[in-house]
């Protein structure tokens, strides 16, 4: 059972739309190391956990990851507000727009649709926890990469976007160490 809390976990208020940035940020929703993969992973693995503490922990984390999906999606939604056809073309957002307009489609930045091939669920406590560690380590390694990519776009959205994402990465990684 899930109950909706009608608020974001962390506020998202983006002044200037930036579709070029949205093209990159979308990987954090539906990419191989995105929030949707994280949430699906934990919420699927938890059932076969032999230890109630671990199963409960995976439930709590999986639910929080859903809140992250919502926040990143809110970032994308606000980055793509009020666009003119010229802005869409100039930003290279046209290749996404042709299929999804400004809908939030869970996909990687490369255009690959979200797939559960990104995650593993083996019903084995060691295999699954090992997979969780590997996934989280990937996110820690990806963090500087993402920041660099975003920095190159030289945008005022930088603080709005990257700060909440990177703090979430950090707190999540620290918590799980």
């Amino acid at each position, binding site marked *: 059972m899930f*109950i*909706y*809390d*009608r*608020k*974001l*976990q*962390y*506020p*998202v*208020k*983006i002044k200037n739309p930036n579709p070029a940035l949205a093209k990159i940020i979308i990987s954090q929703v539906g990419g191989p190391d995105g929030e949707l993969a994280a949430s699906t992973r934990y919420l699927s693995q938890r059932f076969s956990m032999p230890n109630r*503490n671990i199963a*409960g*922990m995976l439930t*709590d*984390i999986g639910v*929080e990851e859903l809140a992250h999906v*919502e926040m990143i*999606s*809110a970032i994308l*939604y*606000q980055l793509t*507000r009020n666009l003119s056809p010229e802005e869409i073309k100039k930003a290279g957002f046209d290749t996404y727009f042709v299929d999804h307009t400004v809908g939030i489609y869970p996909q990687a930045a490369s255009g690959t649709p979200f797939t559960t091939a990104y995650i593993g669920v083996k019903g084995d406590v060691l295999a699954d926890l090992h997979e969780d560690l590997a996934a989280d380590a990937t996110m820690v390694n990806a963090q500087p990469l993402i920041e660099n990519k975003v920095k190159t776009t030289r945008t005022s959205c930088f603080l709005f976007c990257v700060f909440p994402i990177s703090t979430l990465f950090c*707190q999540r990684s620290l*918590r799980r160490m």
Partner: protein
Amino acid sequence: MTDQQMALRKVQQADFAMLEAGMYLNGYPSCMEALAYFEKIKGEAKAARRAYEEKFGPLTLSAAGGETCFDWNKSPLPWEWEAN
């Protein structure tokens, strides 16, 4: 920052602290310091939520209602610019 934004920030801050303390307690359920912190922040989260909902409308379905019109979907949705 408007009164509504400030009230919402308080809910977000307290809820986040409570969530993280809860995660920690999953791993260390007998940590007295963490248990005391959890009790404290739980109270703050409840109070912040009640204060927000009284003035600005429901955050969960259990706080929704209305005498002539249902108020659950009256305010902007959380991802809207106006809601933050």
